[in-house]
C-alpha cells in the first residue's frame, strides 16, 4: 500500500503520475484518455493543492497563448524568400565553374604540350606547375585532417 501524504490527501503514486507523467498538463490541454481524465478529476476533488496548481498552470498557459509577436516586413520576407529560390542556381553555378575551369586547364596543358616549344621549357613549366599543384593538394589534405580534430570549428570568427 502506498503511503498517504497527509498534507493534501494525495497518495505518492498519484502524485508521481500527476507530475512525472504530466497528467495534470495533459488534463489542462484536453489530451488525456477518458480513463486518465477521470483519474485526474478524482484527485482534483480530493486535493486543494492540486486544484490550486491546475488553476495556476491554466492562467499561465492563457497568458502565454495570448502573447503576440511582431512579423517581419514584406521587404524582409521578399529578401529572404529570394534567397531560397536562388540557392539552387548558386550551387549549380559553382559546379559549372569548377567543371569548366578543370576543362580549361586540361585544354591549356594539352595545347602547351603539343606546341612547338622547346622541350626544356616544357619540362620547366611542367615541374613548376606540378610542384605548385602538389603544395596545394598537401595544404588541402592537412586542412581536411585538422578540421575533424578542431574543437573550435564551430566558432564564427
Amino acid at each position: 500500500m502506498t503511503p498517504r501524504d497527509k498534507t493534501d490527501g494525495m497518495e505518492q503514486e498519484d502524485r508521481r503520475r500527476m507530475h512525472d507523467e504530466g497528467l495534470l498538463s495533459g488534463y489542462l490541454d484536453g489530451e488525456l484518455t477518458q480513463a486518465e481524465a477521470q483519474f485526474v478529476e478524482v484527485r482534483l476533488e480530493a486535493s486543494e493543492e492540486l486544484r490550486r496548481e491546475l488553476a495556476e498552470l491554466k492562467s499561465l498557459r492563457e497568458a502565454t497563448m495570448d502573447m503576440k509577436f511582431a512579423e517581419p516586413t514584406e521587404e524582409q520576407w521578399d529578401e529572404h524568400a529570394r534567397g531560397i529560390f536562388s540557392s539552387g542556381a548558386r550551387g549549380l553555378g559553382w559546379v559549372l565553374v569548377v567543371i569548366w575551369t578543370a576543362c580549361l586547364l586540361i585544354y591549356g596543358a594539352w595545347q602547351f604540350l603539343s606546341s612547338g616549344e622547346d622541350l626544356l621549357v616544357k619540362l620547366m613549366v611542367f615541374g613548376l606547375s606540378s610542384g605548385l599543384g602538389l603544395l596545394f593538394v598537401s595544404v588541402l589534405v592537412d586542412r581536411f585532417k585538422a578540421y575533424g580534430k578542431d574543437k573550435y570549428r564551430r566558432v564564427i570568427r
Partner: protein
Amino acid sequence: MIGVTMNGTVAISGDFDEQRAIESCREGNKEMFRPLVEKYRQQTFFLALQIVGNREDALDIFQESFIRAYSNLGQFDTTRPFGAWLLRIVRNLCIDLLRRRRVRRAVSLDDPGRGQDGEAGRPLHETVGDERTPSADVLLERNELKIQIWSAMGRLDEKHRTILVLRDFQDLSYLEMAEVLGIPKGTVMSRLHQARRRLREELTRDDEE
C-alpha cells in the same frame, strides 16, 4: 486560402493540394515550392523566433530551413505531415545556432572548457550573452506580465523552451509535437509538464527578487 494568426499558426482551407505540390517539386518544378513557402513561412519564422529569441537569426533560419527542405525533398516520407518535418528542420537549425552561440561565448570568455560537450540544453540567456538575450521588442504587446513571461522563457533550457513554444505559441497537439520532436507522446506530456513547472518557478523567483 491560407490564414495565419499572429502567433504564426496556420489555418488552411480551400484547394491547395500540398501533396501534389511536393510531388511536382520532386519532379523538378521548383515553382511549386513557392506555395509551400507561402503556407509555412510564418510558422517557421515564428517557431525560430520563439526559440532563438531574435528576429535576424529567425529570418536566417526561416530561409535555411526551406533551402534544406527543398534539397532533401527526395528523402521526405510523403505519408508523414510535411509541416511537422519542416518544423523539425527548423528546430534542428535552432539547436545548431544555440550551440554555435554557446561556443562563441565560451571563447569570448576565454574559457575553452565550456561549450564542448555538444549539448544545446542550456538556458538561452547563458548561451547568448547579454547582447543576445531575448528582446521584448519582438512582442507586439509589451505589458509587464508578457515581458516577464518572455524573459522567464529565455532562462529555460532549450528542451523546455521548445516544448512550451510548440504547445502554447504554435498550438500543436501532443501528437504533432511528438512528430516534430521525434519522441513518444507520453514523453511530450511529461516534458511539457516539467517545462510549465520550471516556468512557474522562474516567474516566482522573479516576483521574490
